[in-house]
């Protein structure tokens, strides 16, 4: 029930999924409340909506004396706080941890456990009044953002498009979303000069919703919640335009080239030392699929999640 104008379409179906899944999960409803202490989560702004809901649910239904605080400095910045001695307990990430970062964890002397929490579709959004760029090929999209794409105006993409300058935007380098885009899609080629990179997703939403020539990319969740203000570009990966949706952004589904897993990283040593951290990790693994849909993510396959539960149980 936290969507905006789009409640009828998404939320209801999600609630159904949620309740179905709840039946399969005995742990959820029993609030045992025997743990206390705090759990500190930082990192991805993309993952924030999902993890904040998980954390809130955990505190309301599971352990009311445990304080789970969730911040959202962005994936990379979050790792900065995570990969130090006495850092945060969890770091959400919208890209995979890098080798250098893992090395830092080693240096700080603790073990990191990676948990995928959901699947996210990198979504390109345009203004509601933009009636020409509603369907673009993957290559055309890349050419808009690539520094060498040779595209400045819409008409540079296709001659029938307006002769107007394109305003390309995206989250800034603090964000995993940026890095995913930069590394996996642009293959580490620089972004176009003059791209407007912002810290806050809300700024991006506003910018595009008010700018006919704007185009921005970010996680699917930020699009779902702003369908009244934005429209998504349907991407043609070679087999015709695909609309990003919960159904299409699965790992094997049609939107897969722009789909990426999102993660949370756990400081294993802290989980061993602090039962509430471990407990929250378990809760997350057990319940994250339940909340994925309503926050704009596609859920992971159940087996994958179950594997985490087993690993975590082993830490007890």
């Amino acid at each position, binding site marked *: *029930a*936290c*969507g*905006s*104008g789009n409640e009828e379409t998404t939320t209801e179906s999600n609630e159904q999924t949620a309740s179905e899944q709840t039946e399969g999960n005995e742990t959820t409803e029993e609030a045992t409340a025997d743990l206390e202490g*705090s759990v*500190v989560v930082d990192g991805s702004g993309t993952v*924030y*909506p999902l993890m*904040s*809901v998980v*954390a*809130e649910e955990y*505190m309301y239904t599971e352990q009311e004396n445990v*304080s*789970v*605080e*969730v*911040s*959202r400095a962005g994936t990379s910045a979050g790792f900065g706080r995570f990969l130090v001695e006495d850092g945060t307990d969890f770091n959400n990430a919208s890209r995979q941890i890098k080798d250098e970062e893992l090395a830092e964890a080693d240096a700080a002397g603790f073990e990191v456990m990676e948990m995928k929490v959901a699947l996210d579709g990198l979504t390109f959004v345009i203004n509601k009044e933009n009636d020409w760029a509603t369907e673009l090929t993957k290559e055309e999209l890349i050419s808009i953002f690539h520094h060498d794409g040779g595209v400045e105006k819409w008409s540079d993409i296709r001659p029938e498009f307006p002769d107007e300058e394109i305003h390309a935007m995206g989250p800034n380098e603090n964000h995993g979303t940026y890095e995913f885009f930069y590394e996996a899609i642009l293959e580490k080629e620089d972004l176009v000069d003059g791209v407007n990179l912002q810290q*806050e*997703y*809300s700024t991006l*939403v*506003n910018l595009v919703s008010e700018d006919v020539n704007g185009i921005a990319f970010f996680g699917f*969740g*930020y699009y779902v*919640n*702003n369908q009244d*203000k934005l429209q998504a570009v349907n991407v043609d990966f070679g087999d015709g335009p695909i609309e990003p949706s919960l159904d299409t952004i699965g790992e094997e589904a049609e939107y897969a080239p722009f789909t990426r897993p999102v993660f949370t990283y756990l400081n294993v040593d802290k989980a061993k030392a602090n039962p509430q951290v471990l407990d929250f990790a378990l809760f997350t693994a057990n319940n994250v699929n339940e909340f994925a849909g309503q926050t704009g993510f596609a859920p992971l396959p159940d087996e994958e999640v179950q594997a985490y539960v087993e690993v975590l149980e082993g830490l007890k």
Partner: protein
Amino acid sequence: MKYVDTALVQKKMNGRLLLNTFAKTVFLLSTLFGLVVLAVLIYRVVSDGIGWINLDFLTGKLSTNADRAGIMGAILGTLWLMAVVAPVTMFLGVGTAIYLECYAKKGRIHSIIQTNISNLAGVPSIVFGILGLTIFVRAMDFGNVILAGGLTMSLLVLPIVVVASQEAIRAVPAHLSEASFGMGATKWQTIKNIILPAALPGILTGAILSLSRAIGETAPLVVIGIPALLIPFPGGIMDRFTILPMQIYYWTLDSSLVAEYANLAAATIVVLLVVLFLLNSIAIVIRNKFQQRY
């Protein structure tokens, strides 16, 4: 020989008077401009927010779910922050003011401190945030807890309290302290028994005004770092916390995620403005009621 042509003067007179009347109108309109903006601002905020203010909102926990989100955590955080700021600034501010007004000789030390205070008053609040981050959060390793935030805010509003206290102390007529000295009281006895009680209303007024400044400040706490989602209520000065302006900040930013957050932000602004209004009213009451006529 006449230089001043009376007829000409007479002719120009009407134009000058008209210009004067016109200017007066423009000046009045300018004055009203600020007030109109104020009215619009308050109207906007209230109309967006008032529907969301109810007991559950005021006493509830924070939530990502707009319907059940409450601001008790932020209110308590604000109160805890005040619990640090009020005594610290009063102690430092009044102490400094007493030193400057009663002890310091008008010399180098006096002018260094005095100049320093007026400079400090002009330092942007965000710079205090960096100071707090570097000293309290990191070097002293408090972390981003109430104590660190409170100490940072205390330094930020210190000049306000110092200046107000100085004025209050200076306003205590010399003949009162002379009477006390004349009885053989020592300086400290005179300060403690005569000057401070007489200056108290002025000092309190300044302290309350400084508190209301501290309550509204956001920038330093952004730098210090306040979690976006923190549900449990703070219970002591070493707890992490959020405050009303930070909640407004996050809700404003996230309004693109959940549209109702904009209403929550507006509702929180209403609460914040009411708190500020109450504080300022108290300050005015103290100023009017307890001000002694000597």
